[in-house]
């Protein structure tokens, strides 16, 4: 039996890893995106909370993702707050990439011309409504490439969760290679699967460019 056919025989392990990776990725980027938008809104309102959030975002940017995952899984359980590995991993992903999404949007917010916001104020919009209907849509159209990049980072960060025992794609490949001692084929298959997901993401992000193009937002 060739090494490749061993990988094929072990496909259910790899597929269930793939499924968990896709699920973790999707749930975490949705959560992270909403968290990022929420943090941006709170930053917009200013005050002590905004100051704290800036500190939090800077901390996340200085922290390696793996350390955060360790902290939530092992660190908190030492304090008596025990989560299962998937929950801890999901939470780490949401917090970490939420901070990055907030930072991407904040950067774009700083250079958003104030005129469209003044116009909304003059027309009687409330601050929350201005954020939701005027500021956020423009920021999303402006930051599409950066958000696309962040999605790919987020996908790859899910593989760190193997280390805190989450049985995602990398962990599944590792299990297969360790059982049959076939590291090369096992990891090559995994690389191809990550690449395939990345290619889909790239395609989706570039397709999303048509929204910006129709509104004159690309190449601005």
């Amino acid at each position, binding site marked *: 039996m060739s090494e490749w056919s061993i990988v094929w025989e072990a496909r259910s392990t790899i597929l269930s890893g793939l499924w968990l990776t896709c699920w973790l990725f999707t749930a975490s980027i949705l959560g992270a995106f909403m968290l990022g938008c929420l943090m941006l809104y709170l930053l917009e309102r200013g005050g002590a909370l905004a100051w704290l959030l800036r500190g939090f975002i800077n901390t996340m940017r200085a922290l390696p993702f793996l350390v955060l995952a360790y902290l939530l899984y092992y660190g908190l359980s030492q304090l008596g707050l025990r989560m299962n590995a998937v929950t801890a991993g999901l939470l780490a992903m949401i917090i970490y990439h939420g901070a990055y999404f907030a930072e991407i949007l904040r950067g774009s917010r700083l250079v958003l011309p104030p*005129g*469209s916001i*003044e*116009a*909304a*104020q*003059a*027309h*009687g*919009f*409330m*601050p929350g*409504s201005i954020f939701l*209907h*005027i500021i956020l*849509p*423009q920021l999303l*159209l402006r930051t599409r490439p950066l958000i696309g990049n962040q999605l790919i980072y987020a996908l790859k960060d899910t593989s760190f969760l193997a280390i805190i025992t989450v049985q995602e794609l990398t962990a599944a490949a590792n299990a297969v290679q360790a059982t049959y001692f076939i590291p090369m084929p096992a990891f090559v298959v995994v690389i191809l699967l990550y690449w395939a997901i990345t290619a889909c993401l790239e395609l989706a992000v570039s397709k999303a460019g048509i929204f910006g193009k*129709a*509104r*004159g*937002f690309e190449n601005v």
Partner: protein
Amino acid sequence: MSDLPAVEIRKLSKSFSGVEVLRDIDLTVNKGEVVSVLGSSGSGKSTMLRCINWLEEPDSGSVFIAGQRIGYNSDKQRPMTNREMAATRARTGMVFQSFNLWPHLTVSQNVAISPIKVKGMPKAQARDLATQLLEKVGLGDKAEVYPFTLSGGQKQRVAIARALAMSPEVMLFDEPTSALDPERVGEVLQVMRDLSGEGYTMVVVTHEMEFARMVSDQVVFLDKGLIIEKAPPEIFFTNPASERVRRFLDRQD
């Protein structure tokens, strides 16, 4: 209620980092009146306009929109909440020098969104209103395009339709033609002329002498933060009281 002025400014003062931009401004704009505000750059005319809807918060003095004080809740003796502020601003319409359309929305959505989100108007009704107002400013065929495809004059006419959609008590124009190339100025002034003919109350900060002369009921001249002349155009342009205004008018020809 109809005898209340559309806008009343009392003892308005404003400084920017120690420099006095407005000093004790008093101005009354009656319903249906068109008031042109003239003055050289830095005279405070835009700041005065922006104080009317509180985009600029004055240091002292008060502004009333159709009898209601803006920025301060007189009944409860405290500054307005965000909600009160928004509701009061919604009674004024503003047109900016740089248009400030919302680039992510179509022309029709630009006009319809404020009635929907601010007044809670049903979407279909707001769309009809937008169609009707865009026809009025001569842009019925541009409803479904995005602002970046329009010329400056077209953008400004959309901005006027957008402000009209809120049925404001007063329309505030902040140098509406200053960012336009000369060939596009006329189409915007024509729309404004039509509005004055329909009885809209307007305060227009402008450098367009011809417009001020032909359309306004009152011309106000600001210099170094003070109103130094206020007169009907036939007097303002032929026999102004102040030497400063005479010099200003001499340089226009």
